[in-house]
């Protein structure tokens, strides 16, 4: 391995930060994909995969992606909740690839909610 210089050290730190960011619990945006049995049946796995791919594509270091259980509105799955820094969480319903792409672009990247896909503001408790 190459001998490091101070600037290399800083580069490694910034690169590695992305992988360990999850362990800090702080991020610009937190995306929760609802992955109950109903969600998975309705395609939540694909949604999760799409989000992770988008995060990778945009090389984002400060977006946290996580999962939660059934929110009790199984007929509206797949669903996800987006929490942008210091703003209330927004729950999106009846998702598909196209909607997720738009929500990603507007809400996750720029902090502007997409009201036409949203169920409302708020989130159920995690536990």
């Amino acid at each position, binding site marked *: 391995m190459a001998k490091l210089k101070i600037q290399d050290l800083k580069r490694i730190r910034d690169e590695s930060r992305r*992988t360990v960011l999850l362990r800090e619990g702080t991020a610009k945006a937190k995306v929760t994909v609802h992955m109950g049995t109903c969600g998975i049946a309705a395609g939540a796995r694909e949604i999760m995969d799409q989000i992770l791919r988008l995060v990778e594509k945009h090389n*984002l270091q400060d977006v946290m992606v996580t999962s939660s259980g059934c929110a009790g509105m199984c007929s509206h799955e797949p669903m996800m909740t987006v929490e942008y820094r210091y703003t209330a969480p927004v729950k999106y319903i009846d998702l598909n690839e196209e909607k997720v792409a738009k929500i990603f672009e507007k809400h996750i990247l720029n902090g502007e909610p997409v009201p036409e896909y949203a169920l409302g503001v708020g989130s159920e408790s995690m536990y």
Partner: protein
Amino acid sequence: MKPKRTHILVCTGTGCVSAGAFDIMEALKTEIKKHELQDEIAVVPTGCNGFCENGPLVLFEPEGIFYRRLKVQDIPFLVEEHCLKGRPVPSLMYTPPKEKSPIPAMKDIEFFKHQKLVVLRNRGRIDPERIEDYIAFDGYMGLAKALEMSPEEIIEEVKVSGLRGRGGAGFPTGTKWQVCRDQPSTPKYLVCNADEGDPGAFMDRSVLEADPHAIIEGMIIGARAIGAEQGFIYVRTEYPLAVQRIKKAIQQAEENGLLGEGILGSDLKFTLSVVQGAGAFVCGEESALMQSIMGKVGRPKQRPPFPAQKGLWGKPTNINNVETWANIPQIILNGGEWLAGLGTENSKGTKIFSLVGKVNNTGLVEVPMGIKIREIVYGIGGGILGGRKFKAVQTGGPSGGCLPESMLDMPIDYESLKSVGSMMGSGGLIVMDDKTCMVDVARYFTDFLAHESCGKCFTCRKGLERMLEILTNICDGKGKEGDVELLEELAIMVKEASMCALGQTAGNPVLSTIRYFRDEYDAHIRERRCPAGFCKALITYSILEDKCVGCGACARACPVDAISGEKKQVHKIDADKCIKCGACAEVCKFDAIDKS
């Protein structure tokens, strides 16, 4: 690289490893693969979380949900519920004693809530075997900053921080460095003392296992400040995982140009090697430790000359403890003032304690200096095991002292502990309840010290032997009037006339127990009675006639058939046959066994 959505942090400190952490980790990986989640979820081994009582421990991030006492058979359910369906599993979470509902998030648990992590900041957060993880949390940034400072500025920063030796003596670290730097003789050496020999202490092991790079970084900064080119980490062979991790970390540092020549592109040169000790307690004493590094018998030497003047191979040597070295990168990175803002007037920063004994949450805790013993025992420790009564806390390892209940509100710092006849030591805290006999405690520690005495000083060699003899007699019910006074005289003699710290503190267990628990000694000697009901020679078991229902449980439990009686009739214990094992008292549901 595709980002992960969940990191499962598995504690792989020695405590959790012995409880099966590696099996849990494998099971997690297998289950995750089974559900094809391996691209979304990472399983990361980390250092000791400190909550060893509840191991194996696992933390799910980013939710911060904490699972404990996991078994391999729990894993399929856990992975399916939590990882696949996003439903945390309450039955595997921690529920405090006396409470009904579990606490899901680690940060809300009392044990973790009151801690202040400086040295242990990376515990349970990074994979100790990956240098990238360490760097991600500003690792080696303290070194980068130190390379832009002059050696004098580094030493000044350490002085400002008020950091004192965490090995127990509490000598100001900055001053120690200054003395070594000012020596004209070269080469100079650095030593990290990781020979942690106290029974029940595992602070240093935990730092070595959880964050080995912090020690290496601290030592490289020390090398620049002091002008040393070679360093040694002296660690006991009984810590195999710690040895393995620190060796791996050294190798990674070498490969990345952080050790060797031209560190980080500067002109700094420093090499580091691990020396394994054979586990002699006295080798934790610095002069004996240096003898051992040089391949000689580990026996202390007269000081002065101090190691800073004439240490390894007669050259100036700076010795610091693991915890002291691990503080250094943070001090340089955040400034000395930052550390000086924590703790008390004379004792700055934090201290790691290993909390063991009769307390609910045993484990490893890092707290600001000046915290009250009560806050540690009852707050973080969750009170006494089984709701029993607190009797004493032993601080400072085998040569520390036992402090009674009246000292619970005393702030913990170097001076206050010393003033009440104990010491900070390396930071062991052994909690004792009302079933602990204080004479036996003094006997136990004196026995340990008598064994570990190197024998060079007559007072320590023979004095401890005589003290042990007297204490054993008292415990056996053969104590005589005047024994306590003789013990005191001997203990003071050993303290005053021995050369090294082992002998100079060896009288503490006896002196402090006499000082605070004299009545227990008197009960043993004058009344032939052990108030805690512990010393076997001084107790007899009998069956209370009014309570015995004749169920026969005790007779079945007795290993020597000393209990007889007809069914539904009062049973009897044959005192000649009884070996006083206490098995009968444990099985009796009617409290019919009397111990007096």
